[in-house]
Structure formats: structure tokens, C-alpha cells
């Protein structure tokens, strides 16, 4: 075996407690779509990977979760090795076989229908998409409604792809099948589960 030429970044300082607190952040985010949550724990990771994405990966991925990476993450020299070392998740080529997809450059996000959408009997067997986006504090304002939202909530964000919500409208037609998305900007994250809808603007 060739010697390791890349020194891998560490993961969590305390695997058990940091995974717990990161999970609670993600759970709160999924329960309150559109609200910005912040990962508090210190986390290491590859330079091309935002700390929020690294923390989610360390918290939710393991040998049982086939993982799909976009071209940018695949090309980064340390990402595959870091994920393999810290999570053991098998990296798969077919996006429709993935439990999770990590996307570094969401502007080039493939057709959403190419991911696992679940089945009518088991809609949970779908890919959770984790997208690194330009900003979750500045940009366009989106008004959202759905379970977890008290009436309506406003998310101000600069998204990639820019037409993300339009593309996520497949969730409305497919429900209960569909895709759940977590947007990440640095340590901040916002969940858009398949039940979240864009409210008509101006309301």
C-alpha cells in the first residue's frame, strides 16, 4: 500500500457529545423549516467542505449510508479519504442509490429526479441533499409555509441553484415521495423538508 500523502483533518473533538448536539441542531432545523440554525461544536474537515457539512457528515453518515458526491467534492483530493476515514460511508456513483448527497457546487446540481425519491410504500427511502450555498443571511427573500412553520416564515438567502425552489416543486407533485434538503453556509444551516412550499409572494 502506498503511504498516505495527505494528512487528514480531524473530525469532532468529542465524537459522542458533538454528534448529539449537531443532531439536535439538524433535528430543530428539520422541525422548523426555513429557520437558520447554527452548529456550535468545533469540527475539522477538508478545506473545500464547510464546517456545517462536515458536522452533519460526522453525525449522520456511516457504513449503512451510501453517499453521493458532486464533481467538485470528488475532485477535491482529501474529501473522499476524510469521509471514508471518519464515517466509513461507501461512496457510490449512482445518485439514485444514495442515502445522502453532498454537493459543493450546487449551481451544477443534476436533475433532482436523478436522486432516490422513495417509494409510495417507503417514502423515507430517499436521498437527503446537503448543499453548500453562497449565503443564508443575504440575498433574495423566500416566504415559506408548511409543517413546522407557524403560518409563514421568511428566509433570506442567496441560493444555488438560483431556481432551487422551483425545482423543489416536484416535492408537491410527488408527496409523500420526495427529497429533503439541508442548505449550509459555513456553520449555519436551514432545512427544507419535502413538505415545505413557497408561499405566493407579497403575502
Amino acid at each position: 500500500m502506498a503511504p498516505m500523502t495527505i494528512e487528514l483533518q480531524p473530525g469532532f473533538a468529542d465524537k459522542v457529545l458533538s454528534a448529539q448536539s449537531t443532531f439536535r441542531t439538524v433535528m430543530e432545523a428539520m422541525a422548523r423549516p426555513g429557520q437558520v440554525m447554527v452548529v456550535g461544536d468545533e469540527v475539522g474537515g477538508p478545506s473545500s467542505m464547510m464546517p456545517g457539512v462536515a458536522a452533519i457528515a460526522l453525525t449522520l453518515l456511516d457504513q449503512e449510508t451510501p453517499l453521493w458526491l458532486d464533481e467538485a467534492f470528488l475532485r477535491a483530493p482529501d474529501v473522499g479519504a476524510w469521509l471514508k476515514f471518519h464515517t466509513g460511508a461507501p461512496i457510490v456513483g449512482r445518485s439514485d442509490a444514495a442515502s445522502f448527497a453532498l454537493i459543493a457546487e450546487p449551481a451544477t446540481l443534476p436533475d433532482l429526479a436523478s436522486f432516490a425519491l422513495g417509494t409510495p410504500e417507503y417514502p423515507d427511502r430517499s436521498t437527503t441533499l446537503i448543499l453548500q450555498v453562497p449565503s443564508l443571511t443575504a440575498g433574495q427573500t423566500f416566504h415559506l409555509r408548511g409543517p413546522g412553520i407557524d403560518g409563514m416564515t421568511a428566509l433570506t438567502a442567496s441560493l444555488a441553484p438560483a431556481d432551487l425552489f422551483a425545482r423543489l416543486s416536484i416535492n408537491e407533485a410527488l408527496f409523500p415521495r420526495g427529497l429533503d434538503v439541508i442548505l449550509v453556509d459555513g456553520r449555519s444551516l436551514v432545512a427544507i423538508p419535502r413538505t415545505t412550499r413557497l408561499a405566493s409572494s407579497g403575502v
Partner: protein
Amino acid sequence: MNAPTYNFAYLDEQTKRMIRRAILKAIAIPGYQVPFASREMPMPYGWGTGGVQVTAAILGPKDVLKVIDQGSDDTTNAISIRKFFAKTAGVETTTSTDAATVIQTRHRIPEAPLRAGQVLVYQVPIPEPLRFLEPRETETRRMHALAEYGLMHVKLYEDIARFGHIATSYAYPVKVNARYVMDPSPTPKFDNPKMDNCPALQLFGAGREKRIYAIPPYTSVVSLDFEDHPFTRYKFDAPCALCGAEDSYLDEIVTDNKGSRMFVCSDTDYCEGRQAAGHRGTESVAPHKEAAHG
């Protein structure tokens, strides 16, 4: 010195990850039952191992945990689960609904309104509301997939034909987010309206049946009914004998060995809080702590 041989909150990390992934899917698909690989817990199934596993997967050192059994913090079951997590996770425990961040419950929803940020974890014995109509899992999965819930309405309507009203008073089926019919666990139907548009997150764990499901905050939860026979919550004839509450679920308790009876709040924290605030019922001097439940 004996170092603990178990992991934080008892479960190993791989099991926690698996349960955590199931919880996220359950939140994303309100009312849908997510299968999970339930683990053996150091307590019998009847003690709510599904709820215990969900609690173990979410609990952290900053949480304050309350455990209730039929509304009471003081049953053997509630005390054991509270001690289990105090020991394995070092969490602070409480009997106060308001002070708790995580509340594990068997068969009741607290009377005090829940708030955003709280998590209510239900122990569920039978998660499938269609099971008594259809024993085959493949069939109930198909019925949920097609939202084919006609049989459930037929069953409720048979009640009306036989009794003149819907006789189901526990585990009364609800529809979540206008899509999935869900079993709210054997809570009295009195509690059903509290599930609707609730600011807290509600998680349900069934250990033996290996299912996790959820109601996100601010989600519509409607008890199934008919236009000519609308859902009714159930009204008690008299207020609580100890605190005078007219809006809480009451248990009938025996007060002496001659068989005297009275009706008191099932939610002991609520009742004690009201008494401490000066509210009185007709029997306020009675020794509330000796109330025998179930």
C-alpha cells in the same frame, strides 16, 4: 472505582445514528411510520422501549428530562426511566412540564401548553392504526401509500350505528397534515386536540413494532369524524376534587378502604401546581400523593 461500561445515554453511536436518521425522515413525512432496527433495552417492552430509544438518541447533557406515565411522574415506570437517564446521560430531571426540554410520556399529553423547543416523546405499543382492520403489513403499507382510509371510517361509523356515537375513546385515529392517518398511541381522545398546531415537536417510538413517527411543530392534526357526528373531546361532569380544574383529564381514584371515590387530575404536576397557586377542589385535604393510578 467502576467506570461505566455503557455509552452516553446507553445506546452505542451506530444505533443512535440509525435512530437519528429515522427521526429526521419521520419529521420530513409527518405521520408516516419510518421502520427502524429497534434494539434490546435493559427493560421489558411494556416499559416503552421505543420511547426510551428515541429519548436516548436525542438526549444531551444540557437537557432537562421529565417522564410521565398516565400523567403521573411518580409511577414505578416513570421513576425507573428517569433514573435510567439520570445515570446513563447525567441529565437533570424534573417533574415540571414547564422546566422540561424533553418529556417522555406514556398515555397522556400534559395539560400545561407545550412550547417551541420542547420535544414530547411518546411510548407507543401499536403504531399501525389500520392493524385491527388488516393484519398484513404489505397491505397496510399499500393502504397508507394510496391514502386508502375508507375502512377506518367504516369502523368508526359502525360505532355510531351500534352506540349512537363514536365509542373509541383511546388511541382515537387522527389525520396528520391532511395526509397520513396516525395512531396517537393510547392517549385518551381528550388529548387529541393538543396535538394540533402544537408548538413543540412530537416524536413517537414503538420498540416491539420497530417504528418511529413524528408530528412537526405547527402541523395540522385532525381527529377523524363525520359531518353528522363530529369529534367531541369528552367532558367531565365535575371539576377535579383536589384543585377544582374544569379543563383537565380526570382519573377516578379510591380514597379509603370503604371504596369511597373521587375524580382528580391525571396530570399530577398540573394538579399540584394549581393547588400550590391556591386553587381548591371539594376534597383538597385528601392525600393526593397516595392516588392509585390504573
